[in-house]
């Protein structure tokens, strides 16, 4: 019950004076109340919990986090163990010779 799930807004309408949306959760479409996120647009992602959109899911910061993760990989190259890397290269070399 505590779990909130990301979904994509596919349609918006007003019901009983309350903004409502149709939200697509990877194929399953449900009615979601937009009272707490009235400014969200069709096509955007939201975190949805017990029938309420509680926060916009910001694609830009998602991509920024992923880029940060990629950079941790880059740091790995830069500060990683040079001996280990050299050893890996030596192991790889005979294979290449065989080809």
């Amino acid at each position, binding site marked *: *019950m*505590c*779990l*909130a799930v*990301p979904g*994509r807004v596919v349609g918006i309408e007003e019901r*009983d004076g*309350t903004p409502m949306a149709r939200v697509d959760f*990877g194929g399953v479409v*449900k009615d979601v*109340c937009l*009272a*707490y*996120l*009235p400014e969200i647009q069709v096509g955007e*992602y939201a*975190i949805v*919990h*017990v*029938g*309420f959109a*509680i*926060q916009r*899911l*910001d*694609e830009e*910061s*998602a*991509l*920024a*986090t*992923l880029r*940060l*993760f*990629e950079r*941790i*990989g880059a*740091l*790995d190259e830069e500060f990683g163990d040079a001996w280990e890397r050299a050893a890996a290269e030596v192991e790889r070399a005979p294979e290449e010779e065989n080809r």
Partner: protein
Amino acid sequence: MKYIDEFQDPALARRLLDDIARTVTRPWAMMEVCGGQTHSIIRHGIDQLLPENIELIHGPGCPVCVTPLEVIDKALEIASRPGVVFCSFGDMLRVPGSDRDLFWIKSDGGDVRVVYSPLDALRIAQQTPGRQVVFFGVGFETTAPAIAMAVHQAKRLEVRNFSLLVSHVRVPPAIEAVMRSPDCRVQAFLAAGHVCSVMGTTEYPDLADTYKVPIVVTGFEPLDILEGIRRAARQLERGEHRVENAYPRAVRPQGNPVALSVLREVFTTTDRAWRGIGIIAGSGWRLSDAYRDYDAEHRFDVTCLVTEEPAVCRSGEVLQGLIKPHECAAFGTTCTPRTPLGATMVSSEGTCAAYYLYRRLATPRMEETASVD
């Protein structure tokens, strides 16, 4: 969703794990507060992939687990009254009260209905004006705005046959209770991302300061959790204690202002008992005076119920991270998800259920910890 899939990327996870391994030089214990995170951790085996000197302690963040027995008994009492339609989230059905559960009431002829959203319960009230419709409002700050909106709408639309049995709980006082426990081993917190989606991060700097504890707001995908751990570990190694937001795609510092204003109108904070833990000051919400008419406890006058916990159940210690589930004698024998003795086994987000479900007893890492203990 394309970037959610990317947040499960094993190659990136490996790099984060390497970075964590390089960061830690000493043993550290951190607590993930939220039951959703506990399940993600156990399911993806994150606790076993981590370097030996990082221990994850599972926190009290499962609302089903911490709902006090008295409240469950009140729910059972109200649900068995004639003329009542009792609506609840599905995961409350099997939570044992003193002698029965909601499922039992239903098979005994009670009108107990499972709803997905509290607005569904409100609709039932509008459609059946001759009956009293009661919604069981449990959950943390993520769930509370939905319940608040249902009662707010009921008042606006003048639906009078609708009421709430409220047992909402708040995370920051729980963190404080964990830190104050004399047996506390927690050195950093992974804060629950979706709680902060609603509440923002402003409640946490004081806690981080007072208890000199790093608090990292963390999401639920494997990479999110690893990033939370990485940041917490970095702070611990450097002797820092700040609030960091590792889940910016769903958490703004100010939270959701519209939800917060409705929450403040409908609820006020109150002391609340946590099942297995006891009363934590200021840790709950109750309906504010303006909404008192919608309080099912007053409408049905359910006070002075006698309650009894099964003596064998150690879920209080599990909830505070003092023992792991398999250290309870009943675990997997007399207590299983089909025959739960305690709430931490009954709830799909409970720690006992997670350990049972993912067979966490049979793994080498757990045997090791068990023998050390």
